[in-house]
């Protein structure tokens, strides 16, 4: 069947309303239109529903597919980032390891100074506020611009929020002046180092998701 522009728009709107990610929306939309093109019956939105029910298992099937897509991407991106920890890691990253010694010394000096920790505390609060503001603002922006979020947006949010919560927890439990557990300064230095290394991997993961999103958009 040949569809008019209005009918194509109607199908697009409907599929947009039942999908969460732009990637799934595009794939389902292309699939449904391909099916409709080969269908000899006349156009009806019920026909679109029938195709989605038959081929994807309905709205629930699409949701399941989106959840699977998210899980697959999360696992594969983590694997990709941590794949660098192979037998050659220490040989390849000798400068990184040497730099860690200097960084730990820096953290030790920083933690010994209560004022610096107070400043970090303030910076943390600002960071948390910015993150808390960023997500609702992005949602609003997408809503008004009628964008559908990419699965990589969700991936980025999950990684950054999990990372932020993890690193903040480490900081307030072990490093801060009023930390839950009082540790000697050198242990605090080790904790700061763990926070630093974890953050650097999380940042890599976030950039990886961002790059993938750009590729997906292209």
């Amino acid at each position: 069947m040949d569809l008019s522009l209005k009918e194509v728009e109607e199908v697009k709107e409907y599929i947009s309303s039942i999908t969460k990610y732009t990637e799934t929306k595009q794939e389902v939309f292309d699939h449904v239109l391909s099916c409709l093109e080969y269908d000899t019956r006349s156009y009806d939105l019920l026909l679109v529903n029938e195709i989605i029910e038959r081929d994807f298992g309905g709205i629930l099937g699409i949701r399941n597919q989106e959840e699977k897509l998210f899980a697959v991407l999360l696992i594969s991106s983590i694997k990709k980032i941590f794949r660098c920890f192979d037998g050659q890691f220490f040989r390849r990253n000798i400068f990184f390891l040497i730099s860690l010694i200097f960084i730990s010394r820096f953290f030790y000096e920083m933690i010994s100074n209560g004022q610096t920790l107070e400043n970090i505390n303030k910076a943390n609060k600002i960071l948390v506020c910015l993150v808390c503001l960023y997500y609702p603002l992005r949602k609003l922006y997408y809503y008004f611009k009628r964008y559908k979020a990419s699965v990589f947006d969700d991936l980025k949010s999950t990684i950054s929020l999990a990372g932020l919560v993890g690193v903040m927890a480490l900081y307030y439990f072990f490093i801060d002046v009023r930390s839950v557990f009082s540790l000697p300064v050198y242990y605090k230095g080790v904790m700061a180092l763990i926070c630093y290394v974890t953050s650097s991997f999380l940042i890599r993961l976030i950039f990886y998701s961002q790059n993938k999103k750009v590729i997906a958009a292209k």
Partner: protein
Amino acid sequence: MAVNTELFKGTLQTIILKMLSENEKMYGYEITQRVKLITQGELILKEGALYPALHKMEAEGLLETSTEIVDNRLRKYYSLSKDGGKAVASKLEEAKAFISQLELLLKLKPSY
């Protein structure tokens, strides 16, 4: 007699790899139709199973994707990556070995 789709779930990756090794690039709907055509409608590849498998293979680096605008809409094409190309032969060998074991097990073919 229509084939129970549950039976070929484990070979879905092999089917996709084989299809893509014979065609430079394919999109989801095209793969389902090709399977339907080859098996004369006996084997229906459900999109609910196909797309997650394609996404998984893409994430594993077996497939590469490209998008093209066809009839004013984005179409995602899947093609074999370098790793995918290497995996085709081993996956086919695996499938052949599995089928011959299944034949023996179910006594579909006399053993010598």
